[in-house]
Protein backbone atom coordinates (compact mmCIF):
# COMPACT_ATOMS: atom_id res chain seq x y z
CA UNK A 1 0.00 0.00 0.00
CA UNK A 2 1.26 3.46 -0.81
CA UNK A 3 1.88 5.57 2.24
CA UNK A 4 -0.52 8.42 2.85
CA UNK A 5 1.80 9.78 5.50
CA UNK A 6 4.57 12.11 4.51
CA UNK A 7 7.64 13.47 6.26
CA UNK A 8 7.45 17.27 6.55
CA UNK A 9 10.54 18.83 5.02
CA UNK A 10 9.71 22.43 5.82
CA UNK A 11 11.42 24.28 8.70
CA UNK A 12 13.46 21.31 9.88
CA UNK A 13 16.52 19.29 8.95
CA UNK A 14 16.99 15.64 9.82
CA UNK A 15 19.99 13.76 11.17
CA UNK A 16 21.29 10.31 10.32
CA UNK A 17 19.22 8.06 8.11
CA UNK A 18 19.28 4.34 8.80
CA UNK A 19 17.13 1.26 8.43
CA UNK A 20 14.94 -0.64 10.86
CA UNK A 21 13.44 -4.06 10.20
CA UNK A 22 9.68 -4.60 10.47
CA UNK A 23 8.55 -8.21 10.14
CA UNK A 24 11.63 -8.85 8.00
CA UNK A 25 11.09 -5.82 5.77
CA UNK A 26 13.65 -3.02 5.79
CA UNK A 27 12.28 0.49 6.12
CA UNK A 28 13.91 3.89 6.40
CA UNK A 29 14.12 5.84 9.64
CA UNK A 30 15.80 9.05 10.73
CA UNK A 31 17.46 9.74 14.04
CA UNK A 32 14.82 11.07 16.46
CA UNK A 33 11.91 9.30 14.78
CA UNK A 34 9.85 6.91 16.83
CA UNK A 35 9.20 3.42 15.53
CA UNK A 36 5.59 4.48 14.96
CA UNK A 37 6.65 7.44 12.82
CA UNK A 38 9.04 5.42 10.68
CA UNK A 39 6.35 2.78 10.14
CA UNK A 40 3.73 5.39 9.28
CA UNK A 41 6.08 6.93 6.72
CA UNK A 42 6.42 3.48 5.15
CA UNK A 43 2.65 3.06 4.97
CA UNK A 44 2.45 0.64 7.89
CA UNK A 45 -0.47 1.87 10.01
CA UNK A 46 -1.72 -1.34 11.60
CA UNK A 47 0.54 -2.13 14.54
CA UNK A 48 -1.35 -4.92 16.24
CA UNK A 49 -4.49 -7.02 16.07
CA UNK A 50 -7.12 -6.53 18.72
CA UNK A 51 -7.49 -9.17 21.42
CA UNK A 52 -10.82 -10.80 20.54
CA UNK A 53 -11.90 -9.57 17.13
CA UNK A 54 -8.40 -9.47 15.62
CA UNK A 55 -9.09 -6.11 14.05
CA UNK A 56 -6.22 -3.83 12.99
CA UNK A 57 -5.23 -1.10 15.45
CA UNK A 58 -2.83 1.75 14.93
CA UNK A 59 -1.54 4.80 16.72
CA UNK A 60 -4.53 6.41 18.43
CA UNK A 61 -3.62 8.70 21.32
CA UNK A 62 -0.09 9.25 20.05
CA UNK A 63 1.22 10.28 23.48
CA UNK A 64 1.73 6.97 25.28
CA UNK A 65 -1.62 6.57 27.04
CA UNK A 66 -3.84 4.20 25.04
CA UNK A 67 -1.39 1.30 24.51
CA UNK A 68 -2.81 0.61 21.03
CA UNK A 69 0.62 0.84 19.40
CA UNK A 70 2.31 -1.96 21.29
CA UNK A 71 4.83 -3.92 19.23
CA UNK A 72 7.72 -6.29 19.95
CA UNK A 73 11.16 -4.69 19.62
CA UNK A 74 14.33 -6.81 19.63
CA UNK A 75 12.34 -9.60 21.29
CA UNK A 76 10.87 -7.43 24.04
CA UNK A 77 7.03 -7.37 23.84
CA UNK A 78 4.65 -4.50 24.66
CA UNK A 79 6.85 -1.64 23.52
CA UNK A 80 4.96 1.54 22.63
CA UNK A 81 5.77 2.43 19.04
CA UNK A 82 4.58 6.03 19.50
CA UNK A 83 7.13 6.73 22.24
CA UNK A 84 10.08 4.50 21.43
CA UNK A 85 12.82 5.90 19.23
CA UNK A 86 14.05 3.93 16.24
CA UNK A 87 17.64 2.71 16.46
CA UNK A 88 19.71 1.43 13.51
CA UNK A 89 18.82 -2.17 12.61
CA UNK A 90 16.30 -2.55 15.43
CA UNK A 91 13.96 -5.44 14.82
CA UNK A 92 10.22 -4.84 15.10
CA UNK A 93 7.69 -7.65 15.08
CA UNK A 94 3.96 -7.12 14.89
Amino acid sequence: MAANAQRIKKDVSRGDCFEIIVNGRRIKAYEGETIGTAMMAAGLYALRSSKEKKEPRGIFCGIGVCQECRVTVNGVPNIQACKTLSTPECCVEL
Partner: protein
Amino acid sequence: MEKAELAIIGGGPGGISAAVAAAESGVNVTILDENARIGGQIFRQLEKGFTLTNPKAMGRDYQKGVDLFRQFKQVESRINYLNHATVWGIFDHHRIAYERNRKSKTIEYKNLLIASGAYDRPVPFPGWTLPGVLTAGGAQNLVKNQRILPGKKFLLAGTGPLQLVLAHQLIQAGADIAAILEVGDVKGSWLKLMQGMWGNWGYAGDGLQYLQTIRKAGVPIMRNHIIARANGNQNVEKAVIARVDKDWRVIHNTRKSLNVDTVCLGYGLVTSTELTRLAQCDHEYDNGLGGYVPVRSETMETTQKGIFAVGDGAGVAGSQVALAEGRIAGIAASQALGHAPGVGQKKTLAELQKKLTRHHRLRKVLDEISRPRPGLYELAEDETIICRCEDVTFKQIKTLIQKEGINAKDIKRTTRVGMGSCGGRMCGPILIELLRNLGSQISGQPEGLNVRPPVKPIPLGVLAGAENNE
Protein backbone atom coordinates in the same frame (compact mmCIF):
# COMPACT_ATOMS: atom_id res chain seq x y z
CA MET B 1 16.19 3.85 49.33
CA GLU B 2 16.32 7.25 47.67
CA LYS B 3 14.92 10.21 49.57
CA ALA B 4 13.48 13.54 48.50
CA GLU B 5 12.02 16.44 50.45
CA LEU B 6 9.69 17.10 47.55
CA ALA B 7 8.98 14.43 44.94
CA ILE B 8 7.32 15.69 41.77
CA ILE B 9 5.57 13.39 39.33
CA GLY B 10 5.42 14.85 35.84
CA GLY B 11 7.79 17.09 33.89
CA GLY B 12 5.26 19.33 32.14
CA PRO B 13 4.62 23.01 32.89
CA GLY B 14 2.99 22.32 36.28
CA GLY B 15 5.67 19.98 37.58
CA ILE B 16 8.59 22.04 36.32
CA SER B 17 7.34 25.39 37.59
CA ALA B 18 6.74 23.79 41.00
CA ALA B 19 10.24 22.32 40.94
CA VAL B 20 11.78 25.69 40.08
CA ALA B 21 9.87 27.51 42.86
CA ALA B 22 10.80 24.89 45.47
CA ALA B 23 14.44 24.69 44.40
CA GLU B 24 14.70 28.49 44.63
CA SER B 25 13.87 28.17 48.35
CA GLY B 26 16.49 25.48 48.80
CA VAL B 27 14.22 22.41 48.82
CA ASN B 28 15.75 19.12 47.72
CA VAL B 29 13.59 18.15 44.73
CA THR B 30 13.32 14.94 42.72
CA ILE B 31 11.30 14.93 39.47
CA LEU B 32 10.00 11.68 38.04
CA ASP B 33 9.17 12.20 34.36
CA GLU B 34 8.04 9.60 31.83
CA ASN B 35 9.51 11.59 28.97
CA ALA B 36 13.10 11.92 27.81
CA ARG B 37 13.27 15.65 28.53
CA ILE B 38 11.29 18.22 30.51
CA GLY B 39 8.39 19.98 28.81
CA GLY B 40 5.47 17.56 29.01
CA GLN B 41 3.10 17.41 26.06
CA ILE B 42 2.69 21.11 25.40
CA PHE B 43 6.35 22.12 25.64
CA ARG B 44 7.72 18.89 24.22
CA GLN B 45 11.23 19.38 22.89
CA LEU B 46 12.29 18.03 19.54
CA GLU B 47 14.14 14.74 19.63
CA LYS B 48 17.87 14.74 18.99
CA GLY B 49 18.37 14.38 15.26
CA PHE B 50 15.86 17.06 14.29
CA THR B 51 17.18 20.60 13.88
CA LEU B 52 14.85 23.53 13.43
CA THR B 53 15.74 25.71 10.49
CA ASN B 54 12.94 28.12 11.35
CA PRO B 55 12.33 28.45 15.11
CA LYS B 56 9.13 30.44 14.48
CA ALA B 57 7.57 27.35 12.94
CA MET B 58 7.08 25.81 16.39
CA GLY B 59 4.67 28.52 17.48
CA ARG B 60 4.25 30.62 20.58
CA ASP B 61 3.85 27.74 23.04
CA TYR B 62 7.31 26.58 22.15
CA GLN B 63 8.69 30.01 23.05
CA LYS B 64 6.90 29.90 26.41
CA GLY B 65 8.53 26.53 26.91
CA VAL B 66 11.94 27.97 26.19
CA ASP B 67 11.37 30.54 28.97
CA LEU B 68 10.52 27.77 31.42
CA PHE B 69 13.56 25.73 30.41
CA ARG B 70 15.74 28.79 31.08
CA GLN B 71 14.34 29.11 34.62
CA PHE B 72 14.90 25.40 35.15
CA LYS B 73 18.51 25.68 33.99
CA GLN B 74 19.26 28.22 36.73
CA VAL B 75 18.34 25.84 39.55
CA GLU B 76 19.07 22.57 37.76
CA SER B 77 21.98 21.67 40.07
CA ARG B 78 19.54 21.44 43.01
CA ILE B 79 17.08 19.20 41.19
CA ASN B 80 17.37 15.47 40.72
CA TYR B 81 15.66 14.98 37.34
CA LEU B 82 14.87 11.36 36.47
CA ASN B 83 13.68 10.92 32.88
CA HIS B 84 11.99 7.78 31.50
CA ALA B 85 10.66 7.16 35.02
CA THR B 86 7.20 5.60 35.18
CA VAL B 87 5.51 5.83 38.58
CA TRP B 88 3.44 2.71 39.14
CA GLY B 89 2.47 2.97 42.77
CA ILE B 90 2.07 5.30 45.74
CA PHE B 91 2.19 3.53 49.08
CA ASP B 92 1.92 4.23 52.81
CA HIS B 93 4.83 5.76 54.68
CA HIS B 94 5.42 8.34 51.95
CA ARG B 95 6.74 5.95 49.35
CA ILE B 96 6.51 5.94 45.56
CA ALA B 97 7.48 3.02 43.35
CA TYR B 98 8.67 3.70 39.84
CA GLU B 99 10.18 1.86 36.91
CA ARG B 100 13.27 3.15 35.17
CA ASN B 101 15.59 1.31 32.80
CA ARG B 102 13.65 -1.89 33.42
CA LYS B 103 14.24 -1.73 37.17
CA SER B 104 11.76 -0.91 39.88
CA LYS B 105 12.87 1.53 42.56
CA THR B 106 11.38 3.20 45.60
CA ILE B 107 11.71 6.78 46.73
CA GLU B 108 10.67 8.22 50.08
CA TYR B 109 9.28 11.76 50.08
CA LYS B 110 8.26 14.30 52.68
CA ASN B 111 5.90 16.17 50.36
CA LEU B 112 4.56 15.00 47.03
CA LEU B 113 3.36 16.96 44.03
CA ILE B 114 1.38 15.24 41.29
CA ALA B 115 1.33 16.90 37.87
CA SER B 116 0.13 14.03 35.73
CA GLY B 117 -1.48 16.03 32.91
CA ALA B 118 -4.39 15.22 30.66
CA TYR B 119 -5.16 13.53 27.36
CA ASP B 120 -7.78 13.78 24.64
CA ARG B 121 -11.29 12.74 25.63
CA PRO B 122 -12.01 9.29 24.15
CA VAL B 123 -15.34 9.28 22.27
CA PRO B 124 -16.61 5.96 20.91
CA PHE B 125 -18.39 5.79 17.54
CA PRO B 126 -18.53 3.07 14.88
CA GLY B 127 -15.08 2.82 13.29
CA TRP B 128 -13.18 4.81 15.92
CA THR B 129 -10.72 1.94 16.36
CA LEU B 130 -9.64 1.97 12.69
CA PRO B 131 -6.03 2.97 12.01
CA GLY B 132 -6.19 6.54 10.73
CA VAL B 133 -8.41 7.74 13.56
CA LEU B 134 -6.16 9.74 15.88
CA THR B 135 -6.61 12.06 18.80
CA ALA B 136 -5.95 15.73 18.08
CA GLY B 137 -3.13 15.71 20.63
CA GLY B 138 -1.56 12.71 18.95
CA ALA B 139 -1.80 14.33 15.53
CA GLN B 140 -0.26 17.49 16.93
CA ASN B 141 2.61 15.53 18.41
CA LEU B 142 3.25 13.84 15.07
CA VAL B 143 3.17 17.08 13.10
CA LYS B 144 4.97 19.35 15.54
CA ASN B 145 7.55 17.07 17.04
CA GLN B 146 7.95 14.10 14.73
CA ARG B 147 7.51 16.27 11.66
CA ILE B 148 5.28 13.83 9.85
CA LEU B 149 1.85 14.32 8.30
CA PRO B 150 -0.06 11.18 9.30
CA GLY B 151 -2.22 11.23 6.15
CA LYS B 152 -3.17 13.00 2.95
CA LYS B 153 -6.79 14.01 3.43
CA PHE B 154 -7.90 15.05 6.92
CA LEU B 155 -11.12 15.54 8.82
CA LEU B 156 -10.96 17.39 12.13
CA ALA B 157 -13.87 16.66 14.45
CA GLY B 158 -14.44 17.94 17.96
CA THR B 159 -14.93 21.20 19.74
CA GLY B 160 -13.12 24.32 20.87
CA PRO B 161 -10.47 26.63 19.47
CA LEU B 162 -7.63 24.14 19.90
CA GLN B 163 -8.96 22.42 16.79
CA LEU B 164 -8.12 25.58 14.88
CA VAL B 165 -4.56 25.47 16.19
CA LEU B 166 -4.17 21.94 14.88
CA ALA B 167 -5.75 22.91 11.54
CA HIS B 168 -3.27 25.77 11.22
CA GLN B 169 -0.34 23.46 11.93
CA LEU B 170 -1.59 20.85 9.46
CA ILE B 171 -2.13 23.40 6.68
CA GLN B 172 1.31 24.93 7.28
CA ALA B 173 2.76 21.45 6.87
CA GLY B 174 0.95 21.00 3.55
CA ALA B 175 -2.07 18.94 4.60
CA ASP B 176 -5.38 18.88 2.77
CA ILE B 177 -8.28 19.23 5.23
CA ALA B 178 -11.77 18.31 4.02
CA ALA B 179 -13.52 20.05 6.92
CA ILE B 180 -13.32 21.12 10.54
CA LEU B 181 -16.37 19.98 12.49
CA GLU B 182 -17.33 21.99 15.56
CA VAL B 183 -19.94 20.01 17.45
CA GLY B 184 -20.77 22.91 19.75
CA ASP B 185 -23.32 25.59 19.14
CA VAL B 186 -20.94 28.47 18.55
CA LYS B 187 -22.92 31.66 18.47
CA GLY B 188 -21.17 34.71 17.16
CA SER B 189 -17.82 34.59 15.53
CA TRP B 190 -14.88 32.38 16.26
CA LEU B 191 -12.73 35.41 15.95
CA LYS B 192 -14.41 37.10 18.91
CA LEU B 193 -14.10 33.99 21.02
CA MET B 194 -10.52 33.45 20.11
CA GLN B 195 -9.63 37.05 20.75
CA GLY B 196 -11.10 36.60 24.20
CA MET B 197 -9.05 33.51 24.77
CA TRP B 198 -5.76 34.48 23.23
CA GLY B 199 -6.13 38.09 24.29
CA ASN B 200 -6.07 36.87 27.83
CA TRP B 201 -2.95 34.88 27.18
CA GLY B 202 -1.30 37.81 25.52
CA TYR B 203 -1.31 36.58 21.99
CA ALA B 204 -4.46 37.82 20.31
CA GLY B 205 -2.79 38.00 16.91
CA ASP B 206 -2.30 34.24 16.74
CA GLY B 207 -6.03 33.50 16.70
CA LEU B 208 -6.53 35.78 13.74
CA GLN B 209 -3.61 34.18 11.94
CA TYR B 210 -5.07 30.70 12.43
CA LEU B 211 -8.43 31.73 11.02
CA GLN B 212 -6.78 33.40 8.04
CA THR B 213 -4.75 30.28 7.26
CA ILE B 214 -7.90 28.16 7.41
CA ARG B 215 -9.89 30.55 5.23
CA LYS B 216 -7.10 30.91 2.69
CA ALA B 217 -6.84 27.13 2.38
CA GLY B 218 -10.60 27.04 1.70
CA VAL B 219 -11.30 24.69 4.61
CA PRO B 220 -14.92 24.89 5.82
CA ILE B 221 -15.60 25.16 9.56
CA MET B 222 -18.91 23.35 10.06
CA ARG B 223 -20.68 24.27 13.29
CA ASN B 224 -23.13 21.87 14.94
CA HIS B 225 -21.57 18.93 13.12
CA ILE B 226 -20.20 15.65 14.39
CA ILE B 227 -18.41 12.60 13.02
CA ALA B 228 -20.86 9.71 13.35
CA ARG B 229 -18.84 6.92 11.74
CA ALA B 230 -15.51 6.03 10.15
CA ASN B 231 -15.50 3.42 7.40
CA GLY B 232 -12.67 1.48 5.84
CA ASN B 233 -11.13 -1.92 5.55
CA GLN B 234 -7.65 -1.69 7.04
CA ASN B 235 -7.56 2.11 7.31
CA VAL B 236 -9.99 4.98 7.31
CA GLU B 237 -11.38 5.56 3.81
CA LYS B 238 -14.53 7.51 4.54
CA ALA B 239 -16.09 9.49 7.35
CA VAL B 240 -19.81 9.95 7.86
CA ILE B 241 -20.67 13.34 9.31
CA ALA B 242 -24.01 14.69 10.49
CA ARG B 243 -25.66 17.78 11.84
CA VAL B 244 -26.49 17.79 15.57
CA ASP B 245 -29.00 19.55 17.80
CA LYS B 246 -28.12 21.55 20.91
CA ASP B 247 -27.68 18.33 22.91
CA TRP B 248 -25.25 17.11 20.25
CA ARG B 249 -27.71 14.46 19.07
CA VAL B 250 -27.54 13.54 15.40
CA ILE B 251 -30.40 15.05 13.40
CA HIS B 252 -32.16 12.53 11.20
CA ASN B 253 -31.44 12.66 7.44
CA THR B 254 -28.45 14.97 7.73
CA ARG B 255 -25.73 12.36 7.26
CA LYS B 256 -23.23 12.64 4.49
CA SER B 257 -20.01 10.92 3.57
CA LEU B 258 -16.55 12.46 3.07
CA ASN B 259 -13.52 10.80 1.50
CA VAL B 260 -10.72 11.13 4.04
CA ASP B 261 -7.87 8.92 5.23
CA THR B 262 -7.22 10.57 8.58
CA VAL B 263 -9.59 11.71 11.32
CA CYS B 264 -8.39 13.86 14.24
CA LEU B 265 -10.63 13.87 17.31
CA GLY B 266 -10.43 16.89 19.58
CA TYR B 267 -13.26 16.83 22.11
CA GLY B 268 -11.25 18.52 24.83
CA LEU B 269 -9.13 16.80 27.43
CA VAL B 270 -9.77 14.51 30.37
CA THR B 271 -7.69 14.50 33.55
CA SER B 272 -5.20 11.78 34.46
CA THR B 273 -6.20 11.07 38.05
CA GLU B 274 -4.86 7.56 38.59
CA LEU B 275 -2.17 8.80 40.95
CA THR B 276 -4.27 11.20 43.01
CA ARG B 277 -6.89 8.45 43.31
CA LEU B 278 -4.23 5.93 44.29
CA ALA B 279 -3.06 8.38 46.97
CA GLN B 280 -6.67 8.37 48.23
CA CYS B 281 -7.21 12.08 47.71
CA ASP B 282 -10.88 13.09 47.58
CA HIS B 283 -12.19 13.85 44.09
CA GLU B 284 -15.20 15.62 42.68
CA TYR B 285 -16.73 15.48 39.24
CA ASP B 286 -16.60 18.58 37.07
CA ASN B 287 -17.70 18.14 33.50
CA GLY B 288 -16.01 21.37 32.43
CA LEU B 289 -12.66 20.49 34.03
CA GLY B 290 -12.29 17.12 32.30
CA GLY B 291 -14.10 14.68 34.61
CA TYR B 292 -12.96 13.77 38.11
CA VAL B 293 -10.60 16.28 39.71
CA PRO B 294 -8.88 16.20 43.09
CA VAL B 295 -10.37 18.52 45.71
CA ARG B 296 -7.74 21.16 46.48
CA SER B 297 -7.05 24.06 48.80
CA GLU B 298 -5.99 27.52 47.60
CA THR B 299 -2.36 26.35 47.73
CA MET B 300 -3.12 23.29 45.54
CA GLU B 301 -2.91 20.86 48.46
CA THR B 302 -5.21 17.85 48.12
CA THR B 303 -7.23 16.39 50.99
CA GLN B 304 -4.15 14.32 51.82
CA LYS B 305 -1.78 16.47 53.85
CA GLY B 306 1.49 17.15 52.06
CA ILE B 307 0.23 15.94 48.68
CA PHE B 308 -0.27 18.66 46.09
CA ALA B 309 -1.82 18.40 42.61
CA VAL B 310 -1.37 20.94 39.81
CA GLY B 311 -1.93 21.45 36.12
CA ASP B 312 -4.28 19.75 33.68
CA GLY B 313 -4.28 16.52 35.72
CA ALA B 314 -6.00 18.42 38.53
CA GLY B 315 -8.48 20.19 36.22
CA VAL B 316 -8.01 20.91 32.53
CA ALA B 317 -7.24 24.61 32.14
CA GLY B 318 -4.16 24.84 29.92
CA SER B 319 -0.46 25.51 30.31
CA GLN B 320 -0.68 29.05 31.69
CA VAL B 321 -2.81 27.88 34.59
CA ALA B 322 -0.49 24.91 35.09
CA LEU B 323 2.52 27.24 35.34
CA ALA B 324 0.79 29.44 37.92
CA GLU B 325 -0.54 26.51 39.96
CA GLY B 326 2.87 24.83 39.91
CA ARG B 327 4.52 27.94 41.24
CA ILE B 328 1.90 28.38 43.98
CA ALA B 329 2.25 24.76 45.09
CA GLY B 330 6.05 24.89 44.91
CA ILE B 331 6.10 27.88 47.24
CA ALA B 332 3.51 26.34 49.58
CA ALA B 333 5.40 23.05 49.76
CA SER B 334 8.65 24.88 50.55
CA GLN B 335 6.98 26.62 53.46
CA ALA B 336 5.40 23.39 54.68
CA LEU B 337 8.87 21.84 54.61
CA GLY B 338 10.22 24.65 56.79
CA HIS B 339 12.14 26.60 54.17
CA ALA B 340 12.07 30.38 54.27
CA PRO B 341 10.26 31.86 51.27
CA GLY B 342 12.56 33.01 48.48
CA VAL B 343 12.98 36.70 47.66
CA GLY B 344 9.66 38.18 46.58
CA GLN B 345 7.76 34.90 46.79
CA LYS B 346 5.08 36.29 49.13
CA LYS B 347 4.21 39.03 46.68
CA THR B 348 4.24 36.58 43.78
CA LEU B 349 1.69 34.37 45.50
CA ALA B 350 -0.99 37.08 45.52
CA GLU B 351 -0.30 37.93 41.88
CA LEU B 352 -0.53 34.29 40.86
CA GLN B 353 -3.86 33.85 42.62
CA LYS B 354 -5.21 36.89 40.79
CA LYS B 355 -4.00 35.48 37.48
CA LEU B 356 -5.79 32.21 38.16
CA THR B 357 -9.09 33.97 38.86
CA ARG B 358 -8.82 35.75 35.50
CA HIS B 359 -8.18 32.48 33.67
CA HIS B 360 -11.04 30.69 35.38
CA ARG B 361 -13.51 33.37 34.32
CA LEU B 362 -12.46 32.99 30.73
CA ARG B 363 -12.58 29.22 30.88
CA LYS B 364 -16.24 29.35 31.83
CA VAL B 365 -17.08 30.96 28.48
CA LEU B 366 -15.30 28.25 26.52
CA ASP B 367 -16.80 25.52 28.72
CA GLU B 368 -20.26 26.63 27.77
CA ILE B 369 -19.51 25.72 24.16
CA SER B 370 -17.35 22.64 24.64
CA ARG B 371 -18.67 20.92 27.77
CA PRO B 372 -19.77 17.46 26.54
CA ARG B 373 -23.50 17.00 25.89
CA PRO B 374 -25.38 13.66 26.05
CA GLY B 375 -25.44 13.08 22.26
CA LEU B 376 -21.67 12.66 22.23
CA TYR B 377 -22.01 9.30 23.95
CA GLU B 378 -24.93 8.05 21.87
CA LEU B 379 -22.99 7.39 18.67
CA ALA B 380 -21.82 3.92 19.66
CA GLU B 381 -23.72 0.98 18.13
CA ASP B 382 -23.94 -2.58 19.47
CA GLU B 383 -20.68 -3.75 17.90
CA THR B 384 -18.73 -0.54 18.65
CA ILE B 385 -15.71 -1.18 20.86
CA ILE B 386 -15.77 0.62 24.20
CA CYS B 387 -12.72 -0.98 25.78
CA ARG B 388 -9.95 -1.03 23.19
CA CYS B 389 -7.64 -3.28 25.20
CA GLU B 390 -10.12 -6.04 25.99
CA ASP B 391 -12.39 -5.63 22.94
CA VAL B 392 -15.51 -5.07 25.02
CA THR B 393 -18.43 -3.88 22.89
CA PHE B 394 -21.17 -1.40 23.64
CA LYS B 395 -23.72 -4.22 23.52
CA GLN B 396 -21.98 -6.02 26.40
CA ILE B 397 -22.08 -2.90 28.54
CA LYS B 398 -25.46 -1.52 27.55
CA THR B 399 -27.57 -4.23 29.14
CA LEU B 400 -25.63 -4.07 32.41
CA ILE B 401 -25.79 -0.31 32.70
CA GLN B 402 -29.55 -0.27 32.96
CA LYS B 403 -29.60 -2.66 35.92
CA GLU B 404 -30.54 -1.15 39.23
CA GLY B 405 -27.68 -0.07 41.46
CA ILE B 406 -24.98 -1.05 39.00
CA ASN B 407 -21.64 0.75 39.16
CA ALA B 408 -18.45 0.87 37.09
CA LYS B 409 -16.73 -1.71 39.28
CA ASP B 410 -19.50 -4.29 38.71
CA ILE B 411 -19.32 -3.74 34.96
CA LYS B 412 -15.54 -4.16 35.09
CA ARG B 413 -15.83 -7.47 36.93
CA THR B 414 -18.41 -8.82 34.51
CA THR B 415 -17.04 -7.64 31.16
CA ARG B 416 -13.30 -7.01 31.76
CA VAL B 417 -13.80 -3.40 30.68
CA GLY B 418 -10.91 -1.40 32.14
CA MET B 419 -8.76 -4.43 32.91
CA GLY B 420 -6.41 -4.02 29.97
CA SER B 421 -3.03 -2.41 29.43
CA CYS B 422 -4.22 1.20 29.41
CA GLY B 423 -5.47 0.79 32.95
CA GLY B 424 -8.92 2.10 32.08
CA ARG B 425 -7.60 5.43 30.82
CA MET B 426 -9.53 5.05 27.56
CA CYS B 427 -12.71 3.25 28.59
CA GLY B 428 -12.92 4.65 32.14
CA PRO B 429 -14.05 8.16 31.18
CA ILE B 430 -16.43 6.67 28.58
CA LEU B 431 -17.98 4.35 31.15
CA ILE B 432 -18.66 7.25 33.52
CA GLU B 433 -20.45 9.19 30.77
CA LEU B 434 -22.43 6.12 29.68
CA LEU B 435 -23.52 5.58 33.26
CA ARG B 436 -24.56 9.22 33.52
CA ASN B 437 -26.47 8.96 30.25
CA LEU B 438 -28.06 5.55 30.42
CA GLY B 439 -27.87 4.54 34.04
CA SER B 440 -31.32 5.70 34.98
CA GLN B 441 -31.16 3.85 38.28
CA ILE B 442 -28.22 5.79 39.62
CA SER B 443 -28.66 8.58 42.07
CA GLY B 444 -25.85 11.10 42.19
CA GLN B 445 -22.59 10.95 40.32
CA PRO B 446 -21.40 7.50 39.21
CA GLU B 447 -18.13 6.36 40.67
CA GLY B 448 -15.27 5.68 38.29
CA LEU B 449 -13.23 2.50 37.96
CA ASN B 450 -11.08 1.69 40.95
CA VAL B 451 -7.32 1.99 40.64
CA ARG B 452 -4.66 -0.18 42.12
CA PRO B 453 -0.94 -0.57 41.52
CA PRO B 454 0.65 -1.01 39.07
CA VAL B 455 -1.20 1.89 37.44
CA LYS B 456 0.98 1.64 34.33
CA PRO B 457 1.92 -1.60 32.55
CA ILE B 458 5.18 -2.78 34.11
CA PRO B 459 6.75 -6.10 33.02
CA LEU B 460 6.25 -8.81 35.63
CA GLY B 461 9.99 -9.43 35.87
CA VAL B 462 10.53 -5.81 36.84
CA LEU B 463 7.83 -6.00 39.51
CA ALA B 464 9.24 -9.25 40.84
CA GLY B 465 12.62 -7.58 41.26
CA ALA B 466 11.11 -4.61 43.09
CA GLU B 467 12.21 -3.86 46.66
CA ASN B 468 14.90 -6.55 46.59
CA ASN B 469 17.48 -3.83 46.62
CA GLU B 470 16.10 -2.25 49.79
